[in-house]
């Protein structure tokens, strides 16, 4: 087992004007399951491929355990990787796929057979050992790809969106299997996904990336409860957090009848920036229906009733912020409500933000203002 460490690691693709991965500083602890998550093109796969040695490091270092592996080829890094399209060897049977790395490493035949059998048993692949990949279902192929990594008993697992080719139902069950398997084996794992639900459910910690930079690395719950930037706030959580630009008045942000008191530190920080407005964020579940004179008014556009919850999508008149030019600014607001007595489409209702269930960000920098 080992730790993985990015030290100012940078990758610039030839001809690109900005780095795909920009001076990463990140430590993955021994045995930890770290998820790299972000939108397409944020550099998460590149970062993973830098650990693998498939992508050169233009500046900085990569360390696995005590070793600096920056200039080592993949085979000397003691890592195993699961690819998005599995990259199974199409001409080899399942057993051949599992045993390829062992054969390349010169492991003796009996030992090879033993380890292939053990891995196949772990992943319920025993009946398929003689089959070619094309004769397997998507889920079975995915397990072979996992098995190919597991059979080598590496120090680090690298997984590049391994569930994205599975159907929704299988994805959910495989998600739990991978997470529990990783905990059982205790192998340090870096896992790339663009799906924030996967990130939240699987990772010990989650690293959120954007445009080649690390936004925030924290436990799933901490990311959810205390996002450090507007981007993380909007990216983590489904439906996304409501983010509204609200004018500052006497140390408070004002949105309809709602007055959001900023902490002293936040107010000072906003004042230091010379800001006249801040971005206020509140999750759908932080909203509740209220009567006249409270909160803010919305017109209901759509109601999604899911049984346990109902999601209300509505439009509110955006607070007037000086310097903005759109004529009748509106904002979309999502609220999670109890399924009983949900307003219907076209109704006008009032919503209130629960006390302390809001986040305040600098509109200028997108960073969270101090509490």
């Amino acid at each position: 087992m080992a730790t993985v460490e990015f030290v100012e690691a940078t990758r610039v693709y030839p001809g690109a004007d900005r780095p795909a991965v920009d001076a990463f500083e990140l430590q993955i602890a021994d045995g930890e399951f770290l998820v790299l998550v972000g939108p397409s093109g944020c550099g998460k796969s590149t970062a993973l491929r830098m650990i693998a040695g498939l992508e050169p490091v233009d500046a900085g270092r990569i360390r696995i355990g005590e070793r600096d592996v920056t200039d080592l080829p993949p085979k000397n890094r003691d890592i195993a990787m699961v690819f998005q399209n599995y990259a199974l060897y199409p001409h080899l049977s399942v057993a051949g796929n599992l045993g390829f790395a062992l054969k390349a490493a010169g492991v003796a035949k009996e030992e090879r057979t033993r380890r292939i059998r053990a891995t196949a048993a772990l992943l319920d692949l025993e009946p398929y050992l003689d089959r070619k990949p094309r004769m397997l279902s998507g889920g079975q192929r995915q397990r072979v790809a996992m098995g190919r990594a597991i059979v080598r008993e590496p120090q680090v697992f690298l997984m590049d969106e391994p569930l994205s080719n599975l159907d929704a139902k299988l994805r959910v069950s495989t998600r739990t299997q991978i997470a529990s398997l990783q905990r059982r084996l205790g192998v340090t794992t870096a896992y790339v996904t663009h799906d924030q639900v996967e990130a939240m459910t699987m990772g010990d910690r989650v690293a959120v990336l954007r445009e080649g930079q690390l936004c925030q690395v924290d436990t799933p719950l901490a990311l959810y409860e205390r996002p450090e930037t507007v981007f993380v706030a909007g990216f983590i959580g489904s439906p996304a957090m409501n983010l509204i630009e609200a004018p500052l008045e006497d140390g408070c942000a004002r949105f309809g009848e709602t007055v959001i008191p900023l902490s002293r530190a936040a107010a000072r920080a906003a004042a230091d920036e010379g800001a006249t407005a801040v971005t206020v964020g509140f999750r759908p579940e932080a909203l509740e229906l209220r009567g006249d004179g409270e909160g803010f008014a919305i017109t209901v556009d759509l109601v999604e009733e899911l049984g346990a919850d109902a999601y209300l999508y509505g439009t509110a008149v955006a607070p007037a912020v000086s310097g903005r030019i759109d004529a009748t600014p509106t904002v979309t607001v999502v609220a999670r409500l109890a399924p009983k007595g949900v307003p219907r489409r076209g109704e006008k209702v009032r919503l209130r933000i629960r006390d302390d269930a809001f986040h305040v960000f600098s509109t200028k920098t997108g960073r969270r203002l101090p509490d």
Partner: protein
Amino acid sequence: MTATPPTRCASLPVSGRRSRRRGHAATGWLYASPTALFVLLLFVLPLFLVLRMSGSDWPLLAGNQGINVPDNFHEAVSHRFFRDSVVFTVKYTVLTTVILLALSLGLAVLVQESTRWKGLLRTSFLVPSALGLASASLLFYVLYSPLAGPFADLMRSWGFTFLGTPEGALWSTIFLIVWRYAGFYMLLMLVGLQSIPDEVYEAARIDGASRWQTFVGITLPLLRPTLTLTTVLCVTGSLLAFDQFYILTKGGPDNSTITIVQLIYNVAFQGQNDLGVAAALSVITLLALVIINIAQIRAFSRRADD
């Protein structure tokens, strides 16, 4: 009474549909007819003509003199050059196929991997393919010439000529063919190589396979369809070799480089002028080719199932 109208109604669309289907078929045949005519006139008819010739006494100038089965075949296999030409053609085919395919695969790997000189290398390997085989042969005829060629002085001082000995003539011709076709086969190999996904190679790198292990364990097996195609093409082409030998050696020296097609040509048009025997030789060659190609394709696909 009540039952009649529906039956009548039902029968009408059926006949309509049937006639419409017949119309479709006629249109289909109409579309296919130019190609069908082309194939019939230029491929099927000549094949039957050759089959008929092979069973008839048919001198070049006198025309068909009536059926004489199986005299032509008997005469063909007992021709004094039949054995030699078969042995020589097979030897030439094996050498050419092995050298050409190995070299073109090597070139394909080279131009696929090197990034800097890729364009220049690909183009320079492909340039000879732009030349017709006959033109290329004439070019080499001059290059190899002990009288007018650029190596004439060299050959004189070493007491050696390219086309003067049986071995020299064979290897000089193979050199010409490899030069002329390496680029073309490289292109086919390149298409095959590029159909192998990068991810599979990355997986092999992660799995710790060396370059050689990757080549033998990944590239060659996944290149099998391409190798089948190129082998069949190369073997068929080499078994039917004619132009290069006709221009460079005319079967010489000492009748050592007579290929089967050269023999057919000689029997038909050079001296013996016997179309019947030549046709019999052609039929034998055709059968051999069919058998060899079936065997090759079977061999390649059987290994794919293992």
